[in-house]
């Protein structure tokens, strides 16, 4: 009997041909749960291509790829994630770690295509039907973070403990604090492009995490020979583009750099940086000015074997770092630590030498194979308003220099500072300290053309100045200084409506009916500085190219039309320390090329 059944049963299956099939051709068409993890969506305008999604993906399903129409710029790599759905397991770790929150998952889970390559696409760029789907997986908020959103607070002296003295008020991270802060870094490296010196930021932060501070120091010196200084006063453009800063505080990159430099003792630098045996190549380079660009050029040239001599006009080295930045922000012993290491490589420095009067530039040209000039912007600019020629109207840079030289400066009871940049904040806070010592109270007001939101000073400088009882009253344009019986009575200002015109040019507009009077018996101008290049003789000048606004033109290696003369630092770019360092480094490479080509 069994045998007959075996023969017939295949035929009975034919009966199913006419039945409704149990399987289905098309997707069910049933919507998934609201938080279902389906296909990716990416808001490509918010995405910065930091690649953190790619790094976290356990299945290596994500590639970062260039996208037409998305430009690589500061803070945006121009890359966007492409997902390979042959590998994606829909775990959504990429969404949970996304620094900008641009990457999400829709709840769409069905999609049919016969081309397997279609299952590799760039969400947000390759348009899909679920792009506007509001449902799906998003990073749960709040308190669900793969890295800390809040930065580890930097210990500081209280305003009352610091406003009478010039001692450093930022006390520095401890080991635990530094490691905790370093742990927040996602190592995307977006910051490196923005740093003028292109420092290996994620690499040295990683060295802190690994507690390998010697490696950290080596990484710092590859691109920056002034880490103690930059670790304190760098304008930290890197932090402005930090990917972690999109949804929280950016990493304290500057303080972490300082931590590495602080922890390495200067006696060990040569050994750590492997600079004990540098072979002299017999070539000589003269460097004018011992500011950041000059020191940086000297360092990288000395490493390559050049004999460098720095000529400094003032009695000590450092340029604006020593004579422009107050001691409470940048203590002199820390400037010395960085500079002494550079000098220890055989760099010679001659103080109190004025190029142009003591030695001519032509003489340097004769005696050396090349010359680098980083003489900075030391000349104060005047508002040229009526009364600005009074003897109690000063330039901020002059006063800051005198304070650093240890000379007593004129300090009166009521002072107004004109300017809203970091130099203005430096002089305001320095004068506040001096007033506090002299009169037991602070009465200094800083006023700038720019309104509070566009003041060029670092935000923290403004906040800290106010903590130290200085008044910051931005948004006013000075019109005249009132003088009565030969004495300054105060400063007349009018409301500034806008500083720049539509095309972004400096062209301030005022409301003349809205005026104010700041009482003062001393006024300080801090509206910018100019260069003093008197030392460049007419003959050399003719070889150098200047633009319409009188700015010196240099090539990519900071070489001027006079081939042996390289110029960098604040005169060319900036003004700030880190651009100077970057310029000096590049000029050193340029000088090396120039000298080698000349045989």
């Amino acid at each position, binding site marked *: 009997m069994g045998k007959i059944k075996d023969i017939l049963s295949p035929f009975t299956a034919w009966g199913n041909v006419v039945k409704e099939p149990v399987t289905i051709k098309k997707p069910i068409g049933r919507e998934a749960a609201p938080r279902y993890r389906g296909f990716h969506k990416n808001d490509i305008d918010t995405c910065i*291509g*930091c*690649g953190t999604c*790619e790094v976290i993906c*356990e*299945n*290596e399903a*994500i*590639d*970062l*790829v*260039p996208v037409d129409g998305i430009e*690589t*710029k500061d803070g945006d*790599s*121009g*890359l966007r994630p492409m997902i*390979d759905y*042959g*590998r994606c397991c829909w775990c959504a770790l990429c969404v949970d770690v996304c620094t900008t929150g641009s990457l999400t998952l829709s709840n769409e889970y069905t999609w049919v295509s016969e081309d397997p390559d279609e299952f*590799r696409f760039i969400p947000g760029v390759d348009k899909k039907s679920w792009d506007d789907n509001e449902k799906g997986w998003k990073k749960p908020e709040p308190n669900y973070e793969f890295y800390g959103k809040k930065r580890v607070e930097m210990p500081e002296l209280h305003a009352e403990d610091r406003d009478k003295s010039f001692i450093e008020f930022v006390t520095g991270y401890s080991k635990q604090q530094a490691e905790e802060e370093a742990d927040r870094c996602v190592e*995307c*490296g*977006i910051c*490196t*492009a923005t740093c003028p010196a*292109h420092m*290996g930021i*994620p*690499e040295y932060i990683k060295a802190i995490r690994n507690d390998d501070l010697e490696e950290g120091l080596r*990484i710092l010196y*590859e*691109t920056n020979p002034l880490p103690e200084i930059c670790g304190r006063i760098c304008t930290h453009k890197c932090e402005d583009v930090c990917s972690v800063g999109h949804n929280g505080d950016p990493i304290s990159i500057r303080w972490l750099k300082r931590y590495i430099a602080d922890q390495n003792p200067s006696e060990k630098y040569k050994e750590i940086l492997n600079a004990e045996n540098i072979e002299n190549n017999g070539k000589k380079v003269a460097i004018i000015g011992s500011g950041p660009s000059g020191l940086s050029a000297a360092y*990288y040239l000395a*490493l*390559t074997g050049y004999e460098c001599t720095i000529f400094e006009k003032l009695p000590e080295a450092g340029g604006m770092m020593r004579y422009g930045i107050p001691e409470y922000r940048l203590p002199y012993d820390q400037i010395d630590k960085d500079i002494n290491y550079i000098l220890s490589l055989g760099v010679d420095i001659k103080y109190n030498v004025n190029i142009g009067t003591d030695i001519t530039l032509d003489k340097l040209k004769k005696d050396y194979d090349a010359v680098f000039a980083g003489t900075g912007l030391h000349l104060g600019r005047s508002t040229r308003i009526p009364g600005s020629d009074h003897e109690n109207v000063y330039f901020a840079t002059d006063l800051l220099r005198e304070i650093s030289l240890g000379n007593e400066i004129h300090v009166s009871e009521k002072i107004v500072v004109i300017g809203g940049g970091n130099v203005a904040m430096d002089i305001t806070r320095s004068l506040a300290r001096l007033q506090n010592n002299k009169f037991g109270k602070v009465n200094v007001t800083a006023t700038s053309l720019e309104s509070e939101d566009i003041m060029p000073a670092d935000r923290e400088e403004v906040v800290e100045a106010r903590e130290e009882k200085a008044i910051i009253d931005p948004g006013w344009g000075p019109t005249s200084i009132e003088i009565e019986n030969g004495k300054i009575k105060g400063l007349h200002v009018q409301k500034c409506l806008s500083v720049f015109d539509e095309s972004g040019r400096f062209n301030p507009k005022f409301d003349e009916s809205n005026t104010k009077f700041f009482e003062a018996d001393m006024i300080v101008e801090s509206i910018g500085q100019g260069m003093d290049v008197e030392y460049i003789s007419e003959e050399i000048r003719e070889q150098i190219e200047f633009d319409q606004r009188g700015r010196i033109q240099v090539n*990519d290696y900071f070489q001027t039309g006079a081939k042996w003369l390289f110029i960098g630092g604040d005169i060319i770019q900036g003004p700030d320390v880190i651009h100077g360092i*970057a310029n000096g*480094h*590049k000029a050193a*490479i340029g000088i*090396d090329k120039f000298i080698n080509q000349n045989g």
Partner: protein
Amino acid sequence: MKDLLERLNTKYNLTDIKYQRDNLVFLTIGKENTIDLVTHLRDYEGFTHFVLLSCVDWIEEGKFQLTYFLNQPERKYDIAIRTMIDRDNAEMVSAHHLWRQITTYQRELREMYGINFPGSPGVDENFILEGWDDIPPMRREFDTKQYSEDTFFPREGRKTHDPASYMKEKLYPTEPTTDKVNKTDE
């Protein structure tokens, strides 16, 4: 649901009771009383529908967490019973006699985590991993990436870019960075 929990509490030592919703509760019980509780719920509290049995690997604690998910169809109650078992020589009393489909779940857990359920029919047979010769793949010490690199070939045409290097190439290709300086040193 609250009444039910009160009744159970008099009989069993329940911990970590967490209401996910009014009609869905998670609780934890010791390994030796787990199947007793599951049986009790089925026979006396109307939890006639067995939903699923799952496992989480708590490798740091040296434990596996098993979850028996039951449903009471009349009152639409869901209850998830959790228990922690040792990770080393992991073994759990079989519950296949309560619902026949548990056999399949137990076979899966045997294959994916290496948990034994002595007496469960066909528990040692291949479930989906035919010819598997590595450690159970859902154990967290299993290196999925290494396994896939050793076993599969990469998809052709894939190319990725490191953001920092790509930005250098686009924005400052000639400027000195780490690698350039090293070259000058040499």
